[in-house]
């Protein structure tokens, strides 16, 4: 039953994604590829839409995947699933256990989870990079580099570097998405 699967999958994602939207991307990728909901390219498209529309990235991604798998009801189930753990945990902390996060054991667990989240994001980015730009999917699977893609990536990196020097801040995600869209139209 697709509605229950959507709800439970996003409930699981919502319950363990510490550290905001980007942390959720590795879980989303894992689940969406497993269930066959999205291909790697579709996943990247969804992230782009989630980044360039207002609101929390996690909610945007849940709504989009839910809608494409199960229409309006599907998107409601997925969104409810991703939000529910946060809502309940925060209520618990605000109402009953204001000291929960100051407990030594909880803090120690969070100290273990934080670097793990960073590792998951980095590994996900590197895997996506290897697949999309170099065509490497498995050991011994051969290499088929996408030269235009590599060029776009290099141009984006150069742009972000120059922008950071010039304005003393990072370019916004939307600006990066707009530039990469322009480069895609020109070069592909």
């Amino acid at each position: 039953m697709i509605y229950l699967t959507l709800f439970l999958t996003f409930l699981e994602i919502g319950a363990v994604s510490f550290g905001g939207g980007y942390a959720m991307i590795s879980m989303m990728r894992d689940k969406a590829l497993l269930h066959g909901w999205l291909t790697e390219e579709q996943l990247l498209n969804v992230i782009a839409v989630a980044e360039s529309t207002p609101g929390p990235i996690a909610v945007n991604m849940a709504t989009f995947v839910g809608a494409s798998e199960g229409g309006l009801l599907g998107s409601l189930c997925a969104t409810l699933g991703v939000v529910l753990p946060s809502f309940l945990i925060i209520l618990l902390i605000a109402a009953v256990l204001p000291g929960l996060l100051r407990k030594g054991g909880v803090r120690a667990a969070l100290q273990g989870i934080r670097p793990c989240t960073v590792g998951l994001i980095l590994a996900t980015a590197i895997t996506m990079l290897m697949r999309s730009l170099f065509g490497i999917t498995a050991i011994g699977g051969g290499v088929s580099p996408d030269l235009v893609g590599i060029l776009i990536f290099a141009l984006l990196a150069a742009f972000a570097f120059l922008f950071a020097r010039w304005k003393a801040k990072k370019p916004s995600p939307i600006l990066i998405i707009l530039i990469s869209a322009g480069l895609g139209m020109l070069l592909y």
Partner: protein
Amino acid sequence: MIYLNILLTMMKIGLFTFGGGYAMIALLEAELVTKKKWLTREEFLDMVAISESTPGPIAINAATYIGYKRCGFLGALLATVGVILPSFVIIYAISLFFDAFLSLTLVAKAFRGIQIGVIFLILSAGIKMLRGTKRTPLSLFILGATVLSMLALSLLAVRFSTVLYILIAGTVGASLYLIRCAQKRGEGEK
């Protein structure tokens, strides 16, 4: 009326924040601390710390907390619904015609570029978080082990749920703490 006020304020914040939770924090501060004075600066910083250390979207955590502090369960519910509603409507509308939109050649080309831009964004977010990570032996070990094992398993096409990584890392952190506590107690008895 306070409930309506909470709902509308959070809808406004949901509608005007692009780029996820951290962008929202600046807007929340301007709206709730400076303008509406619903929270003091100190309460606000507490709220941010709690939102960051609990699972789930930071924006949802923040909205639930503020709503509850302001007027209990109903406040929390309205604040959360408010912050989600604009996204939900916009994304649902986009999802209806997204495939048709992608079938245009020029749009498809743009999205091939965008896919690379998104990978770039994820990688830079990861690098930024890497720089902000405290360099203790434990955190460096967990970080390195996570990256290496995830890359190795994905190259070998072995499936290992990312959820398990989080659970293992949390367990390792908590167990080391318990061992340290037990050791201290042992030394105290001597």
